[in-house]
């Protein structure tokens, strides 16, 4: 049940590159990563591509397939029409290292800028009690496999290198939301800092990040919008502003 397929693969490095067209066999049920591996084993031994689990759980094989940010291990060859060429290119928002591998260190730098989980100092191991319904809100964001497709598709940084300095991106907005909603986290001002230090205000909720998330995390609806709403509440509502000053905490109303 195998068929011939035309695959266009971007090959090159930081300074130059272009699409190379190859013919390759594809078998029933195969995903794009399978076909790339076949090319690697038989035609291009030094083709650079990241992958690990091949089961949509690690978020390594992120690339753009026919221009759309996707995981190559979760993209069925059969989802493309017969005779349609499949074009694979590296993530556009990050600098190319070689072929389909990009330098994603931007994300690790941003991770370092988000203040870590802070439990009460006197909380003892085994003593935490939380209701399932309370942990579920943060659990949704902890499903994130750090494939960085949301970062890649986000138009704030996709073609705007200059914004990277002041914008953490959707991956880290859900991280901030996760900590903000975490029943044991006591750090205040996470929402304000999302605005002041991580560029939340630059997001104009086009939901592109939610659309590409392979874990179907509702990034915009469940993380970004709630973060924005509460920031707005506090910034512009004088009574809430006063309340936040008196109580020295946010998000209680």
């Amino acid at each position, binding site marked *: 049940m195998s068929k011939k397929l035309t695959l266009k693969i971007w090959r090159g490095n930081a300074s130059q590159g272009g699409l190379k067209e190859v013919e390759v066999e594809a078998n029933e049920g*195969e995903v794009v990563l399978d076909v790339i591996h076949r090319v690697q084993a038989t035609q291009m*031994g030094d083709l650079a591509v*990241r992958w690990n689990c*091949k*089961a949509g759980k690690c978020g390594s094989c992120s690339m753009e397939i026919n221009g759309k940010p996707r995981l190559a291990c979760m993209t069925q060859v059969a989802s493309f029409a017969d005779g349609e060429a499949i074009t694979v290119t590296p993530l556009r928002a990050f600098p190319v*290292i070689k072929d389909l591998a990009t330098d994603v260190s931007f994300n690790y730098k941003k991770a370092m800028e988000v203040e*870590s989980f802070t*439990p009460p100092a006197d909380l003892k191991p085994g003593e935490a009690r939380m209701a399932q319904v309370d942990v579920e809100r943060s659990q949704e964001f902890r499903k994130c496999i750090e494939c960085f497709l949301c970062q890649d598709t986000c138009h704030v940084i996709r073609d705007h290198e200059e914004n990277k300095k002041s914008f953490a991106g959707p991956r880290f907005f859900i991280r901030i939301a996760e900590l903000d909603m975490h029943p044991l986290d006591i750090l205040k001002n996470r929402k304000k800092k999302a605005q002041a230090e991580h560029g939340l205000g630059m997001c104009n909720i086009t939901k592109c990040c939610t659309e590409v998330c392979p874990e179907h995390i509702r990034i915009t609806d469940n993380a970004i919008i709630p973060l924005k709403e509460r920031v707005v509440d506090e910034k512009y509502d004088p009574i809430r502003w006063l309340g936040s000053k008196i109580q020295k905490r946010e998000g209680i109303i």
Partner: protein
Amino acid sequence: MSEKVAMARHNYDVVVIGAGGAGLRAAVEARSAGLRVAIICKSLFGKAHTVMAEGGVAASMGNVNENDGWKVHFRDTMRGGKFLNHYRMAELHAKESPDRVWELELWGALFDRTKEGKISQRNFGGHEYPRLAHVGDRTGLELIRTMQQKIVAMQQADKKEFGDAESYLKVFAEVTITDILKENGKVAGVYGYRREDGAELLFEAGAVILATGGVGKTFKITSNSWEGTGDGHALALKAGGNLVDMEFLQFHPTGMVWPPSVRGILVTESVRGEGGVLTNNLGERFMFKYIPDVFKDKYADNEAEADRWYTDQDNNRRPPELLPRDEVARAINSEVKAGRGSPHGGVYLDVSKRLSAEVIKKRLPSMWHQFYELAGVDITKEAMEVGPTCHYVMGGVEVEPDTAAAVGAPGLFAAGEVAGGMHGSNRLGGNSLSDLLVFGRRAGVGASEYVKHNQPVKVSELTIKLASEKIAAPFKRTGGENPYTLHQELQEITHNLVGIIRTKSELADAISKIEDIRNRIENVSVAGDRLFNPGFHLSFDLDNMLLVAESTAKSAIVREESRGGHTRDDFPKMNPKWRTLNNIASFNGKEVVVKQQPLPVMPKKLFELFEVNELEKYLTSDELAKGGR
């Protein structure tokens, strides 16, 4: 290719190779001891194979059934391993795993909860009580992310105190280690290259912790990611360490079998823990036929009782689908061989008749997703097709249980899947995540203590030169063999001749074929240059996988019995004599040599935790008479 390759020198107290659960837990501990620590990972940070662990982490917290405790967990672990486990490792593991789970909560982990708000625990094969702390079916991801974020938190604290986040703890992502460097018989550091550009790296270090995981990529059908190439096993052998009981490989009973591209991908045991049943093409729930004598008092022999167990565990025996993994894998293998398999050579696993669609999607979200997207199967409505897949290696580096120090290589430590002994001949599900937390921490402590009491050893220029030449070698050869082809050949050999059912003649055949590939690998040449070149990377992984395969085949051929993850067609029964022996593999520079070593004898206080009539099934009459030491 230019002859002049950049080399960066680094100096640390402790180098941890591997950034899965064990490596990260070890690094946290060594940094907490005030040391400077380098973490080296083959992939990007946070992608290690631990993310694929699904079911949960076993710890006898007793949150769901208060009868649970370390003694019960210890007994289950020894039973699961058919009493070939190192008793001390099983003891430490059972005693310490609750603390290791609770501490993750203080680092931000969010486990699923019980009604009282405690950490929820689920049933799993071989565990007497609900014992696995879990987060849906993505527990491994929760572990890795929690520890990744703990590392970041420690780096942030270092930045506050010392001005540089990486002053005490640094992650070197996408680096492969090709050599453990020794001087005067002691570990002095490690050597390797950056995958991104091929630049070489020297790490001088007082102690080295191996936390490199498993060997699955040596086999054709595996649940392991590309990283499971036995690097740590091979590095330890070459550094003078030993591998214990490498014949024991766990074939997880339920991997996907269709379509071909996903063959081997894991289907979590939680599907059975949540009530999934196994049937053959006659619709028969076949596991009732495969309950071994040693487990007859604990497992139901009829459907009615098995079904009642899901609601009343105190008055019914467990369903046989929850037997230890080796038993279930062999049963599936037998059904398929007898012609009662599914269309694609597996059997059926069905959870749709027990649970509602809503509950399945909530408790097994990634399973639903995986089957829907990759196989076009909706597990809330229909059965899955599943079959055995190479999942885990019980064998590994021989270590001192308390310190995780590798026997025979001073300064070398090993924790997690790369270490051997803990699981005996078969690992229980859930005992892997707890193993890597317990012994990851112990390796961190062991290495820190070692560093504090031993002067670091300087690496000589000659040692560096030899390590560097080895990395350059594949580029200096032209017209040699393709590493991808050799890898596929090796996988065929291990799959066909060292697989789930073994015989003497096939193992002998495997040993000679592996030797043949070993000779041909000397000629491997790679295309392209050092810039992110997977063919170049594979040529080193291949060398490691060959040493692993050789150790496994040579250990398997001498063990003339069937036990746990080692089944011999020509010796189908357990032999009590072999229960008293470990196979110890070492490397003499040319080939792997296997010898036997007596298993440590359990002390009386642990011996007495078991009923005599259970021990009779495993121990010799001599051992029973002595009753431990």
